[in-house]
């Protein structure tokens, strides 16, 4: 299960990773700012609460001593030294040149300013360590310096620990934000990609497909539910329309059969004058035209409406093209066209062989019909990237760019084809066969001529 989960990440495209990571970084930044703000305020409040009373005590002591008569100072300092260890504050009196007169501190710590304001200073100790002191100092009468300090080493260490915890928490929350944000974005993107894939299948004609909806619908799900309802309606309408089309085609055929049989009897009766006989023959031909038309319409409806996926098998399209090429060579020669096949080695795809043959034959017949005498028609199968491209190309007059979009639609016949017989359903049939297989059908300029391509994605062998 883990392997499946892990491999599901491996298959994610680079671009998706990148945008998910960007989202993750954004989440991390926001989280860091939030955590930083909360911890910063806490830190500031805690250190203020810790140091304010000490600062007060130090400054109070300094002011108290400086208000005494100057000559009393050395005595007061020494006398309070005797109260140790009860006295926490260290006091020293230095002469104007900085030498110690009396007190606990043997020298003036570096960085001291004589402004009566408390500050934290580091003082090297005799054993090579460092002592942190909250120090306040001022100059008293006679240019002498009075320094009051209190050991705050443990408080400073505590404050530093607090700082380290803050930094660690920031780093942890940023990292967590990054990972969680990325995963969330990936999940969202995976969902979007699934929706996109479903939409694409629907576009290709799978009208029974629906968009997924989560158990607890969010705004996107509301939209999906809406789209699904539209699809329900669309599917019903298209179904009804297709059924109507098929029914019409079916119901047409019974009277047509009667009509055809009667007309044949009339023709065979031998009592018709030549002119009337020709009329009957033309009528028979017209009925056969209707029959072909209904056959093709039904066939398109069948391919589009009823899945024939069960008939899918491995098909060597190279062999198929050679077979069709060989079958149609005499026909092409009769039309003055050179028919060639360019397809080497087995090129295997999964397809309904008969339908695929029908599509290629349709395109080949088209090319032979419209390319014109002296031209060339080529059936080609080649691998291109991860796809196999089947192409029927000619160097004939081609299809006007304005007509290209429409040639795959039912009953559409290009301006250039006017005057040539045809139902206008050939390419529509090819299009429905392509859709049925999930192939892309593309009309390209062969410069000169026309090239119709069936682009088949190679499905991974299972």
């Amino acid at each position, binding site marked *: 299960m883990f392997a499946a989960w892990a491999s599901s990440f491996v298959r994610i495209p680079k671009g998706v990773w990148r945008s998910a990571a960007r989202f993750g970084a954004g989440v991390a930044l926001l989280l860091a700012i939030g955590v930083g703000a909360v911890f910063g305020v806490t830190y500031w409040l805690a250190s203020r609460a810790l140091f304010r009373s000490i600062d007060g005590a130090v400054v109070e002591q300094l002011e108290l001593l400086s208000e005494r008569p100057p000559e009393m100072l050395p005595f007061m300092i020494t006398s309070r030294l005797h109260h140790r260890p009860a006295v926490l504050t260290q006091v020293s009196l230095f002469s104007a040149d900085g030498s110690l007169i009396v007190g606990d501190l043997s020298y003036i710590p570096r960085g001291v300013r004589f402004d009566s304001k408390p500050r934290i200073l580091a003082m090297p100790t005799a054993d090579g360590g460092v002592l942190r002191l909250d120090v306040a100092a001022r100059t008293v009468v006679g240019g002498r310096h009075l320094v009051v300090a209190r050991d705050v080493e443990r408080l400073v260490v505590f404050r530093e620990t607090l700082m380290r915890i803050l930094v660690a928490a920031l780093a942890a929350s940023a990292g967590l934000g990054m990972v969680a944000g990325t995963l969330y974005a990936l999940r969202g993107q995976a969902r979007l990609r699934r929706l996109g894939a479903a939409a694409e299948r629907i576009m290709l004609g799978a009208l029974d497909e629906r968009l997924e909806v989560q158990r607890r619908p969010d705004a996107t799900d509301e939209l999906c539910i809406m789209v699904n309802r539209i699809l329900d309606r669309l599917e019903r309408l298209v179904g009804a329309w297709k059924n109507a089309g098929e029914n019409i085609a079916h119901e047409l055929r019974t009277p047509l059969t009667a009509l*055809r049989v*009667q007309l044949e009897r009339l023709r065979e009766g031998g009592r018709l004058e030549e002119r009337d006989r020709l009329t009957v023959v033309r009528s028979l031909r017209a009925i056969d035209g209707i*029959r072909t038309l209904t056959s093709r319409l039904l066939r398109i409806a069948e391919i589009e409406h009823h899945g024939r996926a069960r008939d899918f098998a491995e098909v060597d399209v190279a062999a198929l093209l050679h077979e069709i090429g060989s*079958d149609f060579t005499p026909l092409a020669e009769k039309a003055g066209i050179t028919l060639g096949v360019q397809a080497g080695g087995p090129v295997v795809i999964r397809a309904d062989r008969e339908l695929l043959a029908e599509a290629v034959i349709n395109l080949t017949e088209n090319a032979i019909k419209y390319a014109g005498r002296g031209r060339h028609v080529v059936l080609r199968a080649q691998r291109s990237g991860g796809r196999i491209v089947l192409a029927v190309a000619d160097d004939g007059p081609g299809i006007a760019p304005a007509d290209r979009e429409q040639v795959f639609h039912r009953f559409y016949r290009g301006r250039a084809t006017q005057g040539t017989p*045809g139902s206008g359903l050939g390419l529509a049939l090819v299009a429905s066969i392509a859709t049925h297989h999930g192939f892309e059908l593309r009309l390209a300029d062969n410069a000169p001529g026309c090239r119709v391509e069936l682009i088949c994605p190679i499905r991974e062998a299972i």
Partner: protein
Amino acid sequence: MGNPSGSGAVTRLLIVEDDAATAQGLREGLGARGFEISHADSVEAAEALVAAGGWDALIVDRMLPGQDGLFFVRGLRERGYTVPVLILTALDTVDDRILGLRAGGDDYLVKPFALGELVARIEALLRRPTMGLRPMLRAGSVELDLIGRVARRAERDLELLPREFQLLEYFVRREGQVVTPAMLLRDVWNYNFELRSNLVDVQLGRLRRKLDRPGERHLITNVRGVGFVFRADS
């Protein structure tokens, strides 16, 4: 034509078709070709006529009043009735075709059809092609080596392409029998769809040119408006 077996007996056909105009046309059209026709316009009538016996083939429409013709055919087959059945249908999807053959139909013709096509199909049903496992197939001066895939006429190698060989084999096995383009597409090419081009005619033209030398009798001839027939030279 209604007497393809050559035994002197008339071929008796039972048409099961509810559309009166079609039935009447078929009765006349097939009657004119020498068949003896009876007509039933419902399954009940058909059952009674089948029970009376003596039919060479049945032509059954799928859309009968109140019942699918396929059920009727399946019922016959379940009772061990082996007379060939040709199914007429307005439906021609793959599913319909498979259903029709599975129900016990021997062939399948989509409406509207040409009478000639119907007759050719009936005769094909009545005269099963020469099958057998022999490695050589002979018809007059034509000789087919089915293993070596070599065709000869009067000791002359015809140098046929694979498709041409298949075509000739199909004709030789149905000597004297009318073969339609639709039958060739279905049986030789395995295409169950209609072509817009006259592929069959052109391919046959090519085969004929290889088959007949100037001065030799044409072995495959056209049957106007219907198809082709192979007749061996004796």
